[in-house]
């Protein structure tokens, strides 16, 4: 499946990536090449095949409903690019 520049822009926005005009062409070409590689799988008929999401045929384990975590806010917020009064700060969120 070939891709055009506007589709690349749409995907880039969904992924919150910035693709500049100068990069757009190269990115589009590369992705189109990769999609050609991927599309090789379209040659196989898989109508009767069940998808396999996981190599393991096992089921989810459950956790006892217990509070096991302690407050680590001060330590964790040392990692934050911007925080104040215990909150992570980001440019204004518009609702």
């Amino acid at each position, binding site marked *: 499946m070939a891709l055009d520049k506007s589709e690349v822009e749409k995907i880039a926005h969904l992924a919150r990536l910035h693709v500049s005009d100068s990069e757009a062409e190269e990115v589009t070409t590369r992705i189109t090449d990769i999609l050609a590689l991927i599309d090789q799988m379209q040659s196989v008929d898989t109508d009767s095949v069940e998808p396999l999401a996981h190599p393991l045929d096992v089921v989810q*384990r*459950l956790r006892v409903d217990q509070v096991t975590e302690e407050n680590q*806010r001060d330590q*964790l917020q040392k990692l934050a690019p911007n925080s104040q009064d215990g909150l992570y*700060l*980001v440019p*204004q*969120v518009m609702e």
Partner: protein
Amino acid sequence: MEWETVIGLEVHVSLSTKSKLFSGSSTQFGAEPNTQASIFDIALPGTLPVLNEEALRMAVRFGVAIGAEIGKRSVFDRKNYFYPDLPKGYQVTQLDYPTVGKGSLTVTLDDGSEKTIGVTRAHIEENAGKSLHEEFNGMSGIDLNRAGEPLLEIVSEPEITSAEEAVAYLKKLHTIIRYLDISDAIMAQGSMRCDVNVSIRRKGKTELGTRTEIKNINSFRFVEKAIHSEVRRQQELIEDGGQVIQETRRYNADRDETTSMRSKEVANDYRYFPEPDLLPVVIDDEYIAAVKAQLPELPDAKKARFTAEYALSEYDAGVLVSSREMAEYFEIVARQSGDAKLAANWVSQDLLGLLNKNNWDITESPIEAEQLANLILRIKDNTISGKIAKTVFETMLEEKSSVDEIIEAKGLKQVTDSGEIEKLVDEVIANNPDQVQQFKEGKQQVIGFLVGQCMQLSKGKANPAQVNELLREKMQ
């Protein structure tokens, strides 16, 4: 032109587990920002989810309670979008294989009629954190305490046809959830939230009109008002030749109107796919049977029992089962007083009136069920009259004393001594010769006035039945 409204509701209920859906962080309400946000909750790289068994059990409990199909194999999916209160950049939810499938609940409308409304599904998902908008120099503050708390999203079929039905459905859902003890379900605190899908169509048409979604309404009353205003808007729009566009709207209570939230809507494509960090959740019949066995008596069953066992009216029974605590309270009063009728009256009128006036919940009632039962017992054994009982009831609010102590201390004991009553009656007959004459001439209703005089003279303590009897005797 005649219009028909079609409404579907999506209700988010915060499950009252001790810890979060996928981490061991506390879910206690009201903690300092980010003090309940662990390395998993802030999505540090390398951290992984493990499912809370209680959240699953609560979801199944709800499903069983509404007679729903239970997903024996449910699958979690990632719903991808960027938002600062969503640390992983995806919300873990259940798309194709929810834990709770099709079920239904029956609501009673104001005219007493009943309607069964289908529940399409209920799925388990994570809550997001909160964005705070003030005081940070144009920045927003993010608090992730709420991020990762377990939610149950309950989706109704588009079978609701009026605001009244929508509210009845929500109230019923609220009651059931509270009975099941799976959530506080307090709309004002956000532990129950509601999105409303509204569309209209010409009466008689079967295909659905274009719907709008009104997000995050936080009270029953606003749900009702938001629906009314949105239906009005859609009708006017179409009648003026316009078209409804599918979009998300917000209800503005001050202006009583819905407004578009289109700005946030740009090209939403959530790219759902099965969450690879979690495996399918498998439950068997035994598990479901065990959950079923632990269900409490639910409101419909309780109401039926109250009308049968206590001979209450449908209405009274309906009021009394509206919360599990209220029903329990009533049953204690009824059992200990031995008079279900009186118990129902006192609980549904006097007590409920008092609670509503003060905005108290039944669990905050200053009068305990045992005390109210004692009060009724004193009416029944003629220690006090029904009227004096109201005085005692009010005193009970102010004093911690027992019913008997109050009656004793205030000298409210009913006068049943026939000698004392005779004195009263004699005095009243002597003081009201005109009325006595009228009675003798056959004007029976005067008796009421004369009894009243006696009661007044006794400061309400005389036994009215005795007074009545003696008056008639003396005036023959």
